[in-house]
């Protein structure tokens, strides 16, 4: 494997939620993203996917850990400069993000063209109005947004169109890595398909790397080369997408895959997750986070931690069961 | 209990703020109280003498320190104009204002809530517009004008209302003070005649006050009721076949009351403010008219005492609202 574009090392983000109560949203996570690779990030709601993406997009500060970014020969640690001042960081433009709710992520008082033009002005440093206009139209073309829609307010656009504006904005600063936090969750199936095709197309054309956060494993399967499975702030399994879906090793991943609706399983009772999830607040550092819900839970799961181990080439999982 | 204490503690900085602001404000009042109280024929020397007696010759920080120390000892000073201890004066007058204010609030709430609900259940209907126009009209008139208008019509012209000369007719003896609220005190001794007399005196000023705050209350009720009525859980309740009454009251109204409760705190503050004007019209021996007189006379101690007691009242009121909130909304107790 050649040098990754992004190497995340032992990233930690805890939220203070009360006196002596820390919510471990992202707990010691390491992962790599290669240039041109798209990595899917899946996991239960609240497991820290968004938090991780926001840290990586430098919207919030991590408590500790590094985000090494390789741009050509240069390497820099993005985590080193605080988020509050990251807006002026040289690398601001290279990591961009597309948000889940296209509705919420567009300034209601900005026309579509203003939204797309803003990074051009602020990050690319374009001044000339005509040049900006040309570039905005070019970007709109990339994402398949008809130019006549550029003069509209967000509320005058449909969900799919809004998503396109969001993507065009993210592309404006010519990023190397695009973080997509559930970009299609709010869209209709029919629109979702077009947006997914657009994303796949862009990736191929621009050689972008993706970190694709999603609930929908089917989408991840289609779009991503590699998938990372998180559970309560921890990575429990990661590996090539097809491989992980075909042979999930971690019990949580197994349940996740089993829960994907499948008409072929009609009539067969599904394996259902029992018990309650552990609290992400001040979790026991030794216990497996999945313990309690895990059908294969054993006393040792509560006593010592396991780390990711390779179960197949490039396929890592963290579970005691795999030790045997 | 712990929560109450915590809340009170939280209010402390506010009280300190109030004390400082009041102190500065009262000292900035024009006029020389020393000259005022030295009397009509005072010479400059006599004025100086009074000034020393009042401690007004000392530097401001020192005066402030004295004031705070006295406050801490429960000594709020004496009114120079009436010679009474401010605490006694306020204790005597506060119930009058509170009785009026609370009656006003009660009346306003008992009219505004149904109106707000009515408007919310028929949005954009004529009833809705009517309620909006009606309540807005109430808030559009200066209270003193409304008061005088009511006096003119209902007392002077029609002769229906009781004479606007205070809490009780001059020839009815006031009930023995237990709570200071004549309505309650008269009931305590079972004197219905006095109760009735008190009520009669209360009607016009109460209506004046209520008219003024109908609008914010009804508006808030309507808005929050509209929100709640279109919420998912009301839909669930309806889909479960619950009766309209249950849906409207047990489900919608209770939820809609939460923001109304917050508005109530603000409305109470309004009422206390407009008290000042209404009391003047109805010769109400309350704390508001006292404040005006003291303010005009540059009488520091009562003004400070008045504002301080208002602030305390406000703290207590907010506490009550918070308590009511926790009682109504189980969610708030979590974030202490």
């Amino acid at each position: 494997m050649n040098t990754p574009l992004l190497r995340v090392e032992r990233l930690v983000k805890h939220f203070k939620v009360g006196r002596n109560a820390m919510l471990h949203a992202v707990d010691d996570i390491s992962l790599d993203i290669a240039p041109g690779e798209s990595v899917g990030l899946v996991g239960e709601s609240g497991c820290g996917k968004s938090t991780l993406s926001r840290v990586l997009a430098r919207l919030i500060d991590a408590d500790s850990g590094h985000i090494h970014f390789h741009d050509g020969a240069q390497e820099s640690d993005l985590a080193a400069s605080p988020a509050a001042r990251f807006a002026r960081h040289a690398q601001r433009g290279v990591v961009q993000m597309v948000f889940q709710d296209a509705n919420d992520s567009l300034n209601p008082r900005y026309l579509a063209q203003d939204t797309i033009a803003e990074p051009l002005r602020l990050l690319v440093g374009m001044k000339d109005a005509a040049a900006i206009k040309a570039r905005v139209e070019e970007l709109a073309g990339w994402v398949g947004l008809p130019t006549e829609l550029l003069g509209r307010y967000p509320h005058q656009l449909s969900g799919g169109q809004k998503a396109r504006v969001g993507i065009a904005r993210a592309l404006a600063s010519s990023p190397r890595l695009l973080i997509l936090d559930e970009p299609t969750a709010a869209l209709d199936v029919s629109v979702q398909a077009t947006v997914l095709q657009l994303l796949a197309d862009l990736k191929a054309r621009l050689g972008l790397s993706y970190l694709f956060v999603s609930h929908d494993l089917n989408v991840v399967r289609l779009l991503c080369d590699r998938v990372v499975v998180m559970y309560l702030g921890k990575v429990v399994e990661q590996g090539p997408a097809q491989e992980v879906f075909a042979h999930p090793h971690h019990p949580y991943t197994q349940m996740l895959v089993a829960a994907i609706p499948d008409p072929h399983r009609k009539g067969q009772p599904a394996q259902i997750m029992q018990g309650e999830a552990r609290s992400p607040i001040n979790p026991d550092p030794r216990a497996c986070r999945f313990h309690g819900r895990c059908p294969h839970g054993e006393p040792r799961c509560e006593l010592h931690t396991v780390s990711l181990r390779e179960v197949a080439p490039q396929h890592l999982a963290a579970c005691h069961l795999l030790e045997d | 209990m712990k929560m109450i204490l915590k809340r009170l503690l939280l209010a402390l900085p506010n009280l300190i703020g109030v004390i400082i602001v009041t102190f500065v404000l009262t000292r900035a009042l024009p006029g020389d109280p020393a000259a005022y109280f030295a009397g009509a024929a005072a010479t400059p020397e006599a004025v100086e003498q009074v000034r020393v007696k009042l401690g007004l010759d000392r530097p401001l920080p020192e005066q402030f320190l004295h004031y705070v120390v006295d406050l801490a000892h429960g000594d709020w000073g004496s009114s120079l104009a009436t010679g009474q201890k401010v605490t006694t004066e306020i204790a005597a007058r506060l119930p009058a204002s509170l009785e009026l204010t609370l009656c006003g609030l009660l009346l306003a709430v008992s009219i505004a809530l149904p109106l707000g609900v009515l408007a919310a259940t028929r949005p954009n209907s004529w009833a809705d517009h009517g309620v909006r126009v009606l309540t807005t009209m109430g808030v559009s008139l200066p209270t003193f004008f409304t008061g005088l208008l009511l006096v003119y019509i209902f007392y002077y012209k029609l002769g229906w209302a009781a004479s606007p000369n205070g809490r009780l007719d001059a020839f009815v003896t006031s009930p023995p003070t237990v709570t200071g609220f004549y309505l309650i005190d008269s009931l305590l001794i079972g004197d219905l005649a006095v109760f009735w007399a008190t009520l009669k005196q209360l009607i016009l000023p109460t209506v004046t006050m209520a008219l003024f705050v109908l609008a914010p209350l009804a508006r808030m009720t309507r808005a929050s009721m509209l929100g709640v009525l279109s919420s998912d859980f009301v839909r669930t309740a309806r889909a479960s076949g619950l009766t309209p009454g249950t849906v409207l009251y047990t489900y919608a109204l209770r939820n809609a009351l939460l923001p109304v409760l917050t508005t109530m705190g603000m409305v109470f503050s309004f009422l206390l403010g407009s008290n000042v004007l209404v009391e003047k019209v109805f010769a109400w021996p309350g704390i508001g008219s006292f404040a005006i007189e003291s303010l005009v006379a540059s009488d520091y101690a009562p003004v400070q005492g008045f504002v301080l007691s208002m602030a305390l009242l406000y703290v207590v009121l907010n506490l009550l609202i918070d308590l009511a909130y926790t009682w109504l909304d189980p969610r708030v107790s979590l974030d202490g």
Partner: protein
Amino acid sequence: MNTKHLRYVLKENPITAVAFSVFSLFVLMAIFGPLIAPFDPLDSNAGPALSPPTWHNPFGTDSFGRDILSRVIVATRLDFGIALAAVLLSFVIGSAFGCAAGFWGGWFDRISSRLADTIMAFPLFVLAMGVVAALGNTVGNVIYATALINLPFYLRVARAESNVRREAGFVEAARLAGNHDLRILAVHIFPNILPPMMVQVSLNMGWAILNAAGLSFIGLGVRPPMPEWGIMVAEGASYIISGEWWVALFPGAVLMLAVFCFNLLGDGLRDLIDPRRRT
């Protein structure tokens, strides 16, 4: 903001439409008042003292023999001036501080919230009274006092709104687009909290006038002989019982109409300024 949108908003809500037309009338009166008033508002020879409404003096005359109609018309400018200035002052300061407090939080937030709480702990009218009494009764001080007591509302609304929007997707997106905090606050957050603040603005304009009237009633308002609705009502109030109803009634009715129209204007103003309501 195009006329089509204005027409749409007005059509949506008939009451707002009425309020808007009344408001425009008042604005005309404020601008051209002195030109259209039949008499000099200070002229005590406009008619016999305390004359009931006649063709000569349609609103009657006051105790000095001044024409009430002229005074009511000319007063519009001062009253609107007070209301506008007071609201503008508290709006600008309150929303700037509130925005910043809601956005950054921290000690700045704590201090400004405390400040708002402290102001709110006073019965507001009493505070206004105190300020005017302390600083002296000039138009300027009435404005300052009114602005002061309105400040907490803007502080709170702005704080709450910007606090909510701090987390909004478009703010995060703006950050990604290279906006620094101050720019986000000014360009992205502030314009978006305007619509909810508009309702407050219109309500406060009404209060400002009522406040000035209340201050006049206890002798702390605008100085005579300046025509001002509040002071005219306050002066006329004592004539109600004696039967000279017109002295208070006409200024009172106009004052009420103005406050009324301000109060009803709020929703319309919000809709006007909110691009989401544009179709």
